[in-house]
Every structure is written in structure tokens, then in C-alpha cells.
């Protein structure tokens, strides 16, 4: 069975919803293995297991903060090779698209960004995406032995693994990224968290206009 490496994300120690979607999709394609950059608390490992992760790799990298995208890409490439993964699944996004492309380059793998569906058809990986601002749906077939996909949020309905009961063991390791001449991140101002779901991950968006007079209490309640 194919190994599907899922780049799992935790927010405040909890597995985020795009990750649950990726694990659900990964189960259709093969045996999911979760990769977390950083620590994995026991409760998160249990959640990953309940959504089908057969193993969890918690990998830290001292060079991450100073690297724009190359260290994370190298880490994912290394883990994809180490786990023998045929497919790498990552949540869609600007940051992740660049990283996925570099990982695909490193693996000699195909790259599909913003996928909304994927399936194994007679041993070939078929991927669906939507292009031209939603006007066209494209079906494509991967030509290489390995593929890296970024998957749009809310494209897959997350569901727990009916057979997933065991908490997978968490393997930790440190990845050291050695770079030649690279860009260096010298400062970071994190984006302020509003405490609600991310706009790109929401399935329903409720908007308020001038009539609210600046008070969004009722709008938030409706949402």
C-alpha cells in the first residue's frame, strides 16, 4: 500500500481542520503518515491516529525561523524520502505552494496545487482542480512515481477513521538544513489572530455592512 505523507498542522497544540481533511483524503490513497514540524502533544497524536495516521513524525529544525521556505521544503523532502512516501499532501496556501514546489523538485515528483480531489485509478494518481476563477474543472493524471499535492480547504469533508483506534507512536528527530547562499529572514511580525476560524478555511462567510454601525455582535451571533 502506498505511503501518503501528510504535513500536519497544529494550532495551540490542537490538530487544525485542514489537517483532518488531508488525513481523510490520505486514507483513500494509501496509508497516512503524519509529519509535524515541532512538538506533538499526546492529545494531538491521538487525534491524528483517530483520523488514520499510522505513524507520526515530529521533526524540529533549528534553521526554520531564519529560512523563508527552503529549510521547510528540505525537511519535507527528506521525510518523504525517509518514509518512502509516494504522495505528499499539504494544505493549500501561498507559503505551502512554494514549499510544495521545492519538495516536488527535490523528489522529481509531479506538483498539483489547489487540488480539490484525488484518487487512485488502476495505480495512477488522478487529481482534480478548478481553474480560471472557478470557470473550468480540470482532470489530470500524474505521470511520475511520486506527487506533491496542495489541497484546498473545505474540498474534502473530514471524517474519523472507522478503524483508527490506536494512538500512533511519535518519532522525534532534528533536521539540520545546510544551505549554500540563501535569503535570511531577519524579522517577523506575526499576523494578529482574531480567535475565529481563518477566512480561507471557512465554509460559510457572514458579512456585515454599514448598517451594523460598527457593532458586529448580532453578526457574530448569527455566524
Amino acid at each position, binding site marked *: 500500500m502506498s505511503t501518503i505523507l501528510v504535513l500536519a498542522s497544529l494550532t495551540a497544540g490542537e490538530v487544525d481542520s485542514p489537517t483532518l481533511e488531508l488525513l481523510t483524503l490520505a486514507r483513500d490513497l494509501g496509508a497516512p503518515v503524519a509529519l509535524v514540524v515541532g512538538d506533538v502533544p499526546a492529545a494531538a497524536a491521538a487525534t491524528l491516529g483517530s483520523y488514520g495516521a499510522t505513524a507520526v513524525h515530529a521533526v524540529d529544525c533549528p534553521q526554520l525561523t531564519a529560512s523563508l521556505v527552503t529549510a521547510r521544503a528540505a525537511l519535507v523532502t527528506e521525510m518523504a524520502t525517509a518514509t518512502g512516501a509516494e504522495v505528499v499532501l499539504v494544505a493549500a496556501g501561498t507559503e505551502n505552494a512554494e514549499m510544495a514546489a521545492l519538495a516536488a*523538485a527535490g523528489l522529481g515528483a509531479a506538483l498539483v496545487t489547489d487540488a480539490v480531489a484525488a484518487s487512485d485509478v488502476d495505480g495512477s494518481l488522478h487529481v482534480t482542480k*478548478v481553474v480560471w476563477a472557478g470557470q473550468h474543472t480540470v482532470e489530470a*493524471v500524474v505521470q511520475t512515481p511520486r506527487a506533491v499535492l496542495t489541497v484546498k480547504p473545505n474540498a474534502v469533508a473530514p471524517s474519523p477513521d472507522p478503524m483508527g483506534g490506536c494512538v500512533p507512536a511519535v518519532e522525534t528527530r532534528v533536521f539540520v538544513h545546510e544551505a549554500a*547562499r540563501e535569503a535570511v529572514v531577519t524579522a517577523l511580525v506575526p499576523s494578529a489572530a482574531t480567535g475565529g476560524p481563518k477566512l480561507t478555511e471557512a465554509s460559510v462567510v457572514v458579512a456585515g455592512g454599514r448598517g451594523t454601525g460598527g457593532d458586529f455582535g448580532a453578526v457574530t451571533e448569527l455566524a
Partner: protein
Amino acid sequence: MPRILTCVKSVPDPADEVAFTADHTIERPASGVVLSPLDEYAVEQALRLREALPGATVSALTVGPPPAEGALRKALQLGADDAYLVADEAITGSDVFGTVQVLAAAVRSLPDVAVVLCGMSSTDGDLGVLPALLAEALGWPLLSMASVVTITETGLQIERTDEVGTRTVEATLPAVVSVTDQSGEVRYPSFKEVMAAKKRTVTTLDLAALGVEPALVGAGAARVQVSAVTRNPDRPPGRVLLDHDGSSVDELLAFLTAN
């Protein structure tokens, strides 16, 4: 004499309905292709860097069939000094990995390239990953998705805002930079520039000139094959409830409950 090289793409006019050929590639008619709107910001940034770097020149580079020259002509009108078109039948149907091989070979073939500038993504492919792959192919640092570009003593510094937050990133030259639509207003071509542009040269190169193996690019080398493209039905317009007397609240509740 540092050369600032801007990669540009000729794309179907985003305002038009896109058409696909029998082999599922985008139709790129000779008329109806424009300089990708996001690439205009890259050209603008190149011109600003030229103004700040003594002795610098701006070159525009594109890969595509002969009509792709249109994007180069527009770049020249905006103020680029010269332009290069890589056109070769064997490139047809290339994916981003193939395109990057051609671009990297072209960059390496030109002397004194200090900065390669790109737009944040093309309006037809919309992947946004070419700059990262190009930097990797050249072995140069990547300064991507910049909203601000500044020259420093040691090279370039950018500001980038994305899901993570706002980061300041620095690199020595030569480097690959991509800029977003927040990176500054694109100037209007002056009449003087438009007239001067007519005399500037577009040099055409092919794979043989660049030493690129045809087998590494084109549809045959593409890592994904498109099997079908279907037009989706237009979304029905949303319902608008106008409220004069408060009755729309019931209508809205009924709609929300039903859906």
C-alpha cells in the same frame, strides 16, 4: 553594469473567456494576449531598481510562441532597455518544471545578471511557484512575494506579508525576487518611451542556442497530463432580499433553514 532581468509572460486577456485546444492546453491566439497584469509590477520594480543602481540596465525575458513577443514589446514601452524571446516548438506544453529549465538557461546565457524579477503568479497558470523553482535551479537566494524592495549595502531586502505575518528577508546578489500587486503603482508609458521602444531590440533564442535538451521540456516531459477540461455552469446569482418593513427577516430565516 548590473543587468536587472524581468521574466514576463504573455497570457490570454483575463477579461476574456478562456478557450482550450483539443489537447487541453490554453489557446493563445496572436491577438488577445497581453502582458500578464501581475508581471507589470515586476517590470515597474525593475525600472525603480535601475533608477537606484548606477549603470544598471533592464532586460525583459519571456518563453513562448512568437506571439509572446507582445509581452516584451509592452515591457519595452514601459521602459525596459532590451528583450529576449525564447521560442521553440519543442517547448510547447511545458509544465512549470520545463519552463524553469528554459528560463534558467536563458538567465545563465546573459552576462551580469544581478537580479531576476518576477510577478507573484501568472493569471493563466496561477501556481505562484515559478520564482521559487527558478531560484532553486540557479542556486540563487529567493526573495519572493515582496511588497517592498529595498537596496542594502550587501544586496536586497524585502518585506513579505502572508499567512505567517510580515517578514523582513535579506539576500546577497545575484538573487531572484518576486513582487506582489501591493509593491507600488505601475507607471503609464510616456509617449517618449513608446516611441523609443520601437527601436529597442528583441533577440530571439531557441533551445539549441541555450543548450537545453528538448527531451527535458515540452508536453512529453510534463509531470502531469491533463485528461479533461470541463466548463462549469455559471453560478446562479444570489438572492437579494430587499427590506422595507422588516418582513425580510422571516424570508432570510426561511432561506437559511432550508439551506
